[in-house]
């Protein structure tokens, strides 16, 4: 994304968020977490932070800094080599495999590559999340319609993903992640494949989701978005957490643009 090709919206256009509930127990805790892969490569080293409910957090850093590893640890696609990852007080290392689906239903997850099924329509893609977790759930159409309304795609029900723009595809992925009304929303480089305007639209949407009460963690290396939003920033470098700032920026004041 480039500011020059996509003028920054005024601060008033950035959706308001609910204030993070710092007086409540944290919804996410990383306690001295390290992750080393079997080949010896260390993805993150001794990372500690807490996230209160309803917070909006950017995890920033260059490629390979460890942003995506944090997301993968949170959805327990990976487990920590050292330390503890807790979600709503539950230590994910102790979570039994059969309880993993319950954890993931509390979370909405979106990725850079959208992960939509090309042979299903927009509505079917969103409904898929309900059908595979709770096939008997009533008011399926209403739930799908509501999720698509939130992302502004209520008129694209019968369109296939290949007929949509990248931004619209990411909105469908967000709608699919929203149907379970998640308390935690994780986004791994959601604007990575999008043009600046579409990327900004997605960030606005995530801010709205946060405003509705979900805790949002967004891994990104999109400097403009982070600097415009002025939300909490966890900056990663070489697998370590180097900065944790409220209303932070992508780079520290005076830091050179790497």
């Amino acid at each position: 994304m480039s500011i020059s090709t996509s003028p920054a919206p005024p601060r008033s256009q950035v959706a308001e968020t609910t204030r993070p509930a710092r007086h409540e127990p944290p919804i996410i805790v990383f306690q001295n977490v390290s992750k080393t892969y079997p080949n010896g490569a260390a993805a993150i080293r001794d990372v500690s932070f807490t996230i209160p409910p309803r917070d909006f957090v950017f995890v920033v850093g260059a490629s390979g800094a460890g942003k995506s590893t944090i997301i993968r640890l949170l959805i327990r696609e990976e487990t920590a080599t050292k330390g503890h990852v807790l979600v709503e007080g539950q230590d994910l290392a102790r979570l039994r495999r059969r309880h993993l689906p319950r954890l993931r239903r509390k979370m909405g997850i979106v990725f850079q590559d959208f992960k939509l099924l090309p042979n299903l329509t927009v509505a079917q893609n969103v409904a898929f999340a309900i059908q595979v977790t709770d096939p008997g759930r009533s008011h399926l159409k209403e739930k799908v319609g509501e999720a698509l309304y939130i992302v502004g795609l209520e008129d694209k029900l019968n369109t296939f993903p290949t007929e949509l723009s990248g931004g619209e595809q990411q909105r469908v992925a967000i709608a699919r992640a929203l149907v379970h009304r998640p308390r935690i929303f994780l986004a791994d480089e959601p604007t990575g494949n999008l043009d600046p305007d579409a990327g900004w639209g997605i960030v606005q949407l995530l801010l709205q989701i946060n405003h509705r009460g979900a805790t949002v963690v967004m891994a990104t290396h999109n400097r403009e978005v982070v600097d415009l939003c002025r939300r909490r920033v966890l900056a990663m470098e070489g697998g370590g957490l180097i900065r944790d700032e409220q209303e932070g920026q992508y780079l520290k004041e005076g830091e050179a643009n790497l």
Partner: protein
Amino acid sequence: MNPIPALRFVVRVALQNIVRNRGIAFASLLTVTLTLLGAGAAVGVVFALDKVLQQEESQASVLKVFMADHISYASALNLEHSLASEPSVQAASFENKDQAAAQASSTLGLGGALHILETSGGGNPLPASINLHLKNIAAVTAINNQVSTSDLLFPGPHQTDYNKDVIPRVEHYILAAQLGGAILVAVVGAVALVIITISVRTAAFVRRQEIEIMKLVGATDWFVRWPFILEGMILGVISALLASGVLLGVGVAFGSGGSLALGVGVRLAVLISLGLILGGAVLGSFGSLVGIRRSLAT
């Protein structure tokens, strides 16, 4: 989770899998049908062979103990009762000299020779005997050794009709047939299992993104597995039905007198078909479980 919509979803996805991957599904259907055909034919041949060998075994399990001419009827009955009480003896019956002659005349065609002997004053040369029906062919040798020590028996080298060469040979054939059949069925089953596993693994690879999404949105492992298990089961059962159809068709075409080819009875043929269908379903499900395991591991 409501089971009816879940079942509907699982059936729909399983059928979609088969239709979407119809090339692979058809190839595995064909190969599994051929392997099950081989298994069914092997079972039929083994059963037919076993039937023949059982007849041989039943004949070889009868031991004729020849009695000396001088012993009294009471002594012969005592010996009969004594042998009948042995655990390995199923039944014992006494056959007098006249019955032996009648038997020899009817089965061996010796009526003329016996008549000449009797009219020329030679009398009936055949001894009375006790016919022992043993429970097991393996007991024949032991009973023969036990009875041979009795002084009530016909003097000479042939106190019984025990043939020490026949029994081990029959036992050997029975063992070889059972072992060979079991190995053949096991090999064919393993081949079918591998084919179904590869087929399901391919289907899982084609659907890897769908599986990934299912897991990300919180579907349970079993919910991901069931469509694949059902797919394997459907392929296994259809293959078994085709194989059974071909086997029954061939059996009827080459059968005669109320039996199918190789003397296999209709009841046995139906049992083999049911066995193949059950085997196809089990192999299909198990192959699918193995095939999908890798996709669920991550």
